[in-house]
């Protein structure tokens, strides 16, 4: 299958910076995959997203999105294929009401109003926000705001959604909701997801995890491979899940477990057995 996003030797340096934010990045993403991009602050995660949609121009290298090379001419065409959900839900609303905001991207495409009305209704229905269509975005909760932002993005029917730390300002419930919706959209509409994140519950959803470190790709792996090495998680800007942290501490305390556990239940069972042997 042809990759939907491919970066070849992409380098980018910010003005006034003496080191490149991204250095010769090579990355391919297959269609309909969920790829998580992780790394410490300043590793170049957000820069990567901005390069893919042409907000920042790469110094060298080529970026191809859905078979189209990113150039000044193809820029707006490519932006149509990519939707971005940003970190701060308050800083991305243009419309004064929920439905107005969802329509903003459609207005930019000069879509006839009749079609817009249908699209907006469809998009709001996908994120279960139809009941709020006349509300002002400011009156919604963080999770609801991000749902509206998702609706604004999917109304444009993009092939790719980039989540730029979109769940980092949400509470656990809001985060769970958003991930559930994104997962549903990925499966039903065949959208490719690129999620830039620190959050493990978001990484767990991914088919592929790309670890960035100081502007280069340190490792590309599956979720299982990443979690198999809990000692490294912190170095990548991730906080290991409770089960991993506990196993690590037990190991350091000299308690030998028979194997590595991914689930709480498995670990709990082993701990019970250990206790009964004591």
């Amino acid at each position, binding site marked *: 299958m042809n990759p939907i996003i491919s970066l070849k030797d992409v380098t980018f340096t910010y003005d006034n910076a003496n080191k490149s934010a991204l250095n010769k990045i090579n990355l391919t993403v297959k269609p309909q995959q969920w790829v998580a991009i992780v790394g410490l602050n300043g590793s170049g995660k957000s820069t990567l997203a901005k390069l893919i949609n042409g907000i920042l121009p790469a110094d060298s290298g080529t970026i191809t999105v859905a078979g189209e090379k990113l150039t000044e001419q193809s820029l707006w065409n490519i932006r149509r294929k990519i939707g971005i959900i940003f970190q701060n839900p308050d800083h991305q609303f243009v419309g004064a009401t929920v439905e107005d905001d969802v329509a903003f991207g459609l207005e930019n495409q000069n879509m006839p109003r009749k079609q817009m009305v249908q699209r*907006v209704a469809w998009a709001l229905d996908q994120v279960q926000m139809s009941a709020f269509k006349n509300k002002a975005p400011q009156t919604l909760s963080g999770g609801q705001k991000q749902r509206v932002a998702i609706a604004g993005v999917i109304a444009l029917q993009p092939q790719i959604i980039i989540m730029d730390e979109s769940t980092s300002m949400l509470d656990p419930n809001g985060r769970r909701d958003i991930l559930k919706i994104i997962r549903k959209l990925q499966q039903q509409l065949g959208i490719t997801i690129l999620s830039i994140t620190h959050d493990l519950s978001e990484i767990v959803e991914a088919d592929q995890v790309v670890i960035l470190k100081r502007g280069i790709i340190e490792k590309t792996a599956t979720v299982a491979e990443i979690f198999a090495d809990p000692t490294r998680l912190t170095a990548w800007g991730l906080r290991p899940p409770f089960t991993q942290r506990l196993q690590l501490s037990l190991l350091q305390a000299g308690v030998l477990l028979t194997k590595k556990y991914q689930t709480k239940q498995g670990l709990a069972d082993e701990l019970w057995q250990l206790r009964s042997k004591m």
Partner: protein
Amino acid sequence: MGKMIIGRYLPGKSLIHQLDPRCKFIATFIFVAIVFLANNWQTYLALTIFVLSAVLLSQVSLSFFIKGVRPMIFLIIFTVALQMLFTPGGHPFWQWGIFSLSALSIRNGLFIFMRFLLIIFISTLLTITTTPLQMADAVGAILKPLKIVHFPVEEVALMLSIALQFIPLLSDETTKIMNAQRARGVDFGDGSILRQIKAIIPILIPLFVSSFNIAYDLSIAMESRGYQGSENRSKYRQLKWHFQDSLVMLLFIVLTIILIILRS
């Protein structure tokens, strides 16, 4: 958070609330102009009856309109006093130096007072029954003819509407910054005027910085959703001119004619 009401809009479902904002805007302008046609008690009576029935129709309590007068009260008193004391002519029944009072000057003062009251009432009616967003839309629509002289009407309308909805966000931001500065020991609202003004600086600078950050974020969000300027954009939110709006316009023409007939 974010529940602040901008302007003085009072939600309602009255006939006046349902009028097209463009109609209300134009009607208010016409009214302010034709108030100056009135020059005797008949014309002022006609205008007063007209305004009071509009107020009644809006189903908004009269006290809101009276509140609208309050910030203007000094200007009104001053102007009315000037009018009364300095109008020459008539038989002065009180005189002190250059000041005089006559039946004519009292009449004039009273008319000026009525004129103020009517204008304030009608503009309050506009702001109370129209959301800030509708106002922004109406301004955009009314300015449309300026496109001929290449005035960026759509941009201005979009700017207005974005500015309006960022007011609550910025006010939240201000509260946050004030609290942060209070936590560092800045004392607001204490000391001499000079000290109080100085205390505003540590609020203003972070507020500017954060506004620029928000603007930067928003511009990126807009661009990634395909915003390329206001050329070739369709419009989702549409104003609808109903029969009732035409009727209101007709009513204003009738009112103007009545005023012209009644004025002396």
